[in-house]
């Protein structure tokens, strides 16, 4: 009896939409794997999975770091720092990611090579290291760099919002105890800010996974590019896009679920 009731209670808590989504996914997977041509496409596209995840993870990690610095600068007390980071953020947030990708690929990378050569000039002259060439940066690297620079602007804004969301009373209390401004930031404000924006940061990861599809325009062999290449060699446009969509959904929906769970947990914790 009690067991039955408990089971019923648990069942009532499971969201139908998720059951439906997972069910449809399973059916799609089943039919697909029964079909020989789908099986081939699956195996092929799966090879791009690692690249997509790798590009997304690396750019995400780098943009977290850069975004944190930019966010701190944006809420700094020093005006030049504040204005410079605002300039960067507004500029980058105003451009389509596609345009950023093209820029980094063709202007950014050669420029970076020259800057590095300038910095390492003495070593290069001494023959200790070889001069950099633009081609030393692979397209995957450039794509990652572009995603990093682009997402850093978004993440900076999230950090800034997080910093501003921390109750001013916390800062006053820290100052009243004699903590310096940087101690207050580091020990009191940031830990709370980060906790507040964890769900927003996690959402950016989902977004970066989706936007990593754009790196295919540089020929990086991610899920989308491999899908494109396969569609061209098997002449099966649709089947391929179905598989591509399936892979993205697997990643994004499961991550979104995690974000939701995280949000709920934080809410519960704060409510306690």
């Amino acid at each position: 009896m009690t067991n039955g009731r408990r089971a019923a209670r648990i069942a009532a808590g499971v969201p139908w939409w998720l059951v439906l989504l997972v069910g449809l996914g399973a059916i799609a997977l089943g039919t697909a794997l029964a079909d020989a041509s789908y099986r081939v496409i699956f195996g092929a596209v799966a090879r791009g999975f690692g690249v997509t995840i790798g590009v997304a993870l690396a750019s995400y990690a780098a943009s977290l770091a850069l975004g944190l610095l930019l966010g701190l600068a944006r809420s700094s007390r020093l005006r030049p720092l504040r204005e410079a980071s605002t300039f960067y953020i507004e500029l980058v947030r105003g451009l389509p990611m596609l345009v950023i990708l093209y820029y980094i690929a063709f202007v950014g990378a050669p420029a970076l090579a020259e800057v590095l050569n300038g910095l390492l000039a003495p070593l290069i002259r001494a023959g200790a290291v070889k001069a950099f060439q633009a081609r030393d940066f692979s397209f995957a690297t450039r794509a990652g760099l572009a995603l990093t620079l682009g997402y850093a602007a978004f993440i900076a804004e999230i950090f800034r919002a997080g910093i501003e969301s921390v109750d001013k009373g916390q800062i006053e209390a820290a100052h009243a105890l004699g903590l310096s401004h940087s101690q207050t930031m580091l020990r009191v404000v940031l830990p709370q800010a980060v906790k507040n924006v964890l769900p927003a940061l996690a959402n950016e990861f989902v977004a970066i996974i989706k936007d990593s599809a754009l790196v295919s325009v540089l020929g990086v062999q991610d899920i989308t590019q491999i899908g494109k290449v396969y569609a061209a060699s098997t002449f099966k446009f649709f089947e391929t896009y179905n598989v591509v969509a399936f892979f993205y959904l697997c990643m994004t929906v499961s991550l979104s679920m995690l974000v939701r769970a995280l949000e709920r947990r934080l809410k519960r914790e704060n409510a306690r």
Partner: protein
Amino acid sequence: MNAFIRVVDAVKTFGDPERGGVRALDGVSLEVAKGEVVLVIGPSGSGKSTLLRAVNRLERLDSGGIWIGDDEVTARRADLRRIREDAGMVFQSFNLFSHMSVLDNVTLAPRLVRKASAAAAREAGRAILERVGLGDKLEAYPRQLSGGQQQRAAIARALAMSPKALLFDEPTSALDPEMIKEVLDVMTALADDGMTMMVVSHEMGFARAAADRVVFMDRGRIVEQGTPEELFASPREERTKEFLGHIL
């Protein structure tokens, strides 16, 4: 009188004075002796919080000066850390660091500002929390405590820097009736131990039990002051009478 905290002709304006800015402090002078407990009362917006915050240099004055002991709080290049070790502050909304345990709240400033060792800070913190009756809540997080417990933890946090004076800004007004007493008890005990205190509060019980002097402020000025008995029983000014009529 051997003044320990000295406020001389303090003026503080918020906003553009040309366009209806607020004169939160409009020439306030006040002396608090060592070991004295001064209660500040007054209607909302009269400048009570601003006065306390100026004493702790959370707010800068437009003109006038404030001294704590030999330190000039309002000096241009005042040693802020020193001032904040002179006077601790307790806020209406507790402002405990919500991501730290109670003990970490209490030991943070000694460790960072005083460079105390973690062990020493923990030992001292434990003793202070014992003193405010939170010996069994060392590892609790603020959200797990009642309002009264949170405010006592906030007092402990201020005490951990061994300040020479304590400033309280409406320490009980965010509390439920039953929790007010436990906080006032701790404050009364501190007063009895000889702590110099400036307290913004409208708790009459505390005023009678612990205050040496009551200061009534209105519109950024001190209107009247005296012992609790004098001021409550026979206020001289019309404005004071009117205000006391409302709160008594």
